[in-house]
C-alpha cells in the first residue's frame, strides 16, 4: 500500500480561513474563557471553599492573634487585610493547576488538540477565566474585610489600582500553576505539588506579621519576595504611604514570573 502513496491525485485545496490568525486566537480564547467560567458557576462549592480558608484566616488573625501583633502606626486589621487578599489570590491560583490537570486527566485536552482552534486558547482561556474569578473573589474579600473593621484610607482610584495590583499578581502566578497543572497527572497531584510552593511564600512574608520580627535570614527574604511585594503595594494603594517603590517592585516580580513561566507553560502544553 505504500506504493499507492506515490499515485498522484489532486488533493483538497486549503480552505480560505487558516484559523490561526490573531482574530481566531482571540475568539477561541473567549470561547475557552466562557467555558471555564461556566464550569465555575456549575461548581459554586469551589468558589465558596476558596473563600472559606481566607475567611478563617481573617477571623483568626483579626480576633485571635491580632491583639498580640503590634504594627506601629496602623490598626492591625488594616495591615492584615491586604495580606489576606494576596493570600487569597495566591492559594486561589492553585485552581489554575487543578483545572488544567483535570482537563488533561479527563482527556479534554486531547480533543481540543484535535480541533482546528488556536493553540494558545486553552492556556489563555484558563488564565483569563482565573483572572476574572480573582476579581470576584477580591471584591468579596474586601466586603468581608469591611465587616470586620477594615477601612481604606486613600481614594477609590487608588483602591481600584490596589485591586489591579492583586489581579496582575494573580495573573503572573497563574502561569506558574499552569505549568504545574500540565506537569502532573491529576487534580490531587496538582494540589499536592502546589501547596509546598505557596505555603512558604505566603507565610514567610509580610502578609500577616512584620518581617523585622523574624530571624534575620528569613526576614531578609520575607522583605523581598513576590508575595510581600504584592502585599506592600496593595497596602500602599489602599492605606496610603509611598506607592511608587512597592508598586514597581511588585510589577517587576509579576513581569519576571510571567516572562519566565508563561513560555515554559506554553511549551509544556505543546509537548505534552
Amino acid at each position, binding site marked *: *500500500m505504500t506504493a499507492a502513496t506515490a*499515485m498522484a491525485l489532486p488533493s483538497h485545496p486549503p480552505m480560505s480561513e487558516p484559523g490561526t490568525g490573531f482574530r481566531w486566537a482571540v475568539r477561541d480564547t473567549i470561547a475557552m474563557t466562557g467555558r471555564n467560567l461556566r464550569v465555575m458557576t456549575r461548581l459554586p462549592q469551589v468558589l465558596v471553599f476558596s473563600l472559606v480558608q481566607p475567611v478563617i484566616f481573617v477571623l483568626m488573625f483579626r480576633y485571635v492573634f491580632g491583639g498580640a501583633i503590634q504594627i506601629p502606626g496602623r490598626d492591625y486589621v488594616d495591615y492584615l487585610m491586604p495580606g489576606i487578599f494576596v493570600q487569597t489570590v495566591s492559594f486561589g491560583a492553585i485552581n489554575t493547576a487543578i483545572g488544567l490537570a483535570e482537563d488533561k486527566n479527563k482527556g479534554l485536552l486531547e480533543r481540543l488538540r484535535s480541533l482546528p482552534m488556536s493553540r494558545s486558547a486553552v492556556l489563555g482561556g484558563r488564565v483569563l477565566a482565573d483572572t476574572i474569578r480573582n476579581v470576584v473573589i477580591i471584591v468579596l474579600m474586601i466586603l468581608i474585610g469591611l465587616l470586620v473593621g477594615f477601612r481604606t484610607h486613600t481614594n477609590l482610584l487608588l483602591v481600584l489600582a490596589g485591586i489591579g495590583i492583586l489581579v496582575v499578581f494573580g495573573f503572573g502566578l497563574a502561569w506558574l500553576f499552569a505549568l504545574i497543572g500540565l506537569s502532573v497527572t491529576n487534580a490531587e497531584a496538582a494540589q499536592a505539588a502546589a501547596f509546598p510552593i505557596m505555603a512558604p511564600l505566603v507565610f514567610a512574608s509580610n502578609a500577616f506579621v512584620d518581617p523585622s520580627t523574624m530571624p534575620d535570614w528569613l526576614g531578609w527574604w520575607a522583605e523581598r519576595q513576590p508575595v510581600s511585594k504584592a502585599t506592600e503595594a496593595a497596602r500602599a494603594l489602599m492605606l496610603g504611604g509611598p506607592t511608587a517603590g512597592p508598586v514597581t517592585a511588585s510589577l517587576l516580580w509579576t513581569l519576571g514570573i510571567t516572562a519566565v513561566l508563561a513560555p515554559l507553560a506554553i511549551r509544556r502544553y505543546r509537548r505534552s
Partner: protein
Amino acid sequence: MSSPHPRSAAGAAIVADGLVKHFGEVRALDGVSFDVPSGRVLGVLGPNGAGKTTAVRILTTILRPDHGRAVVAGVDVVAHPQEVRRRIGLAGQYAAVDENLTGRENLALVGRLNHLSRADAATRASELLGQFHLTDAANRPVRTYSGGMRRRLDLAAALVTHPPVLLLDEPTTGLDPASRSDLWEVIEGLVSDGTSVLLTTQYLEEADRLADRIVVIDRGLVAAEGTAAELKSRLGQTRVALQFASVDLAAAAAHALGDFGAVHPDGDQHTVDLPLRGGASTVRDVLNLLHARDLEVGRIDLHEPTLDDVFISITSNGGRS
C-alpha cells in the same frame, strides 16, 4: 502553481507510511503502514500498549511522528496539521467531553472551536442531540449521563463539522453490550453515508462487524493484515471434534480416521480432532466409517476459527502465523 499539499493515494482517506514513534526507550510504533480507502472502515486491532493509540494520536496531529509520513483526507499531518484538524473527527476512549457542561453546551463549544458562528453551532448541536437520541438529556450536565450516553455525545462532538474522516479510538471500551450495539449501529450509519473510519479496538467482534479490513498491530509493528475472512482462513479450516465414551474408543477412532488427518490429543483423551477438509460430505464419510467399525460417537462439535483465535495466535508468537 504547485499544490501546497502532498498527494495521497487515489481515494485513500488515510495513508500511514512507515510511522515510527519512540518515547524514550519505548518503541510505541516501529514502522507501521496501512491505509483506509475512502468510504471504508479499517479496524486496528492489538493488545494494550501495542501502539494503537499512538497511531491515532499521530493521525489526529496530536503527536508528530519521529519518522514516516501520514496523509489524512489528502493532507499531510506534519506539514498542515491545522488543515487536517478541519477534516477529521476524533472520538473514543481518550477523547472526552466536559462533565460539568450540559450535552448541548459541549457540542456548541466544539462548534465554536471549529469556528462555526454562534447560531450555526447552536443549530448543529440541536441536530446532533436529536440524531443521537440525547435531546431529553440535552440540558443536563454530562456527569449525570450514563456511560453509553457519554460515548454517544463524544461521538456527536466528533461529527460537528461533518468530517469526511473519523478516527475512533476504542469507541466502545467499557460499555455494556446494549450500548455497544447501539454505538455500532450509529457507526454503520455514518459509514453508509460515506464517512471513512479508522477504528481501534480490542474487541474482535467489533472489528468483525464494522471493519472492511483489519490491521493487527503488536509491539509497534503490523503483525497481520487482511479482511476478517482472510485472517480467519490463515488459521486453517473448520475443525470437527468427536467425543467418545472411553479413551480406548477414542484411540481406536483416531487410528481408523488416520486418512482424515485425525489426531487424538493427549490432554483430552475422549476426543478426536480432525480438519473438515471436504465440508459436510467429510462428516458423512467419517460417521459412516465409524459406524462400520462399531465405534459409537457420543457427541460432535464443529469449531469455526474466530478472530480471537487469529488474534491470540498472531500476538502470542510474534507474528509468525
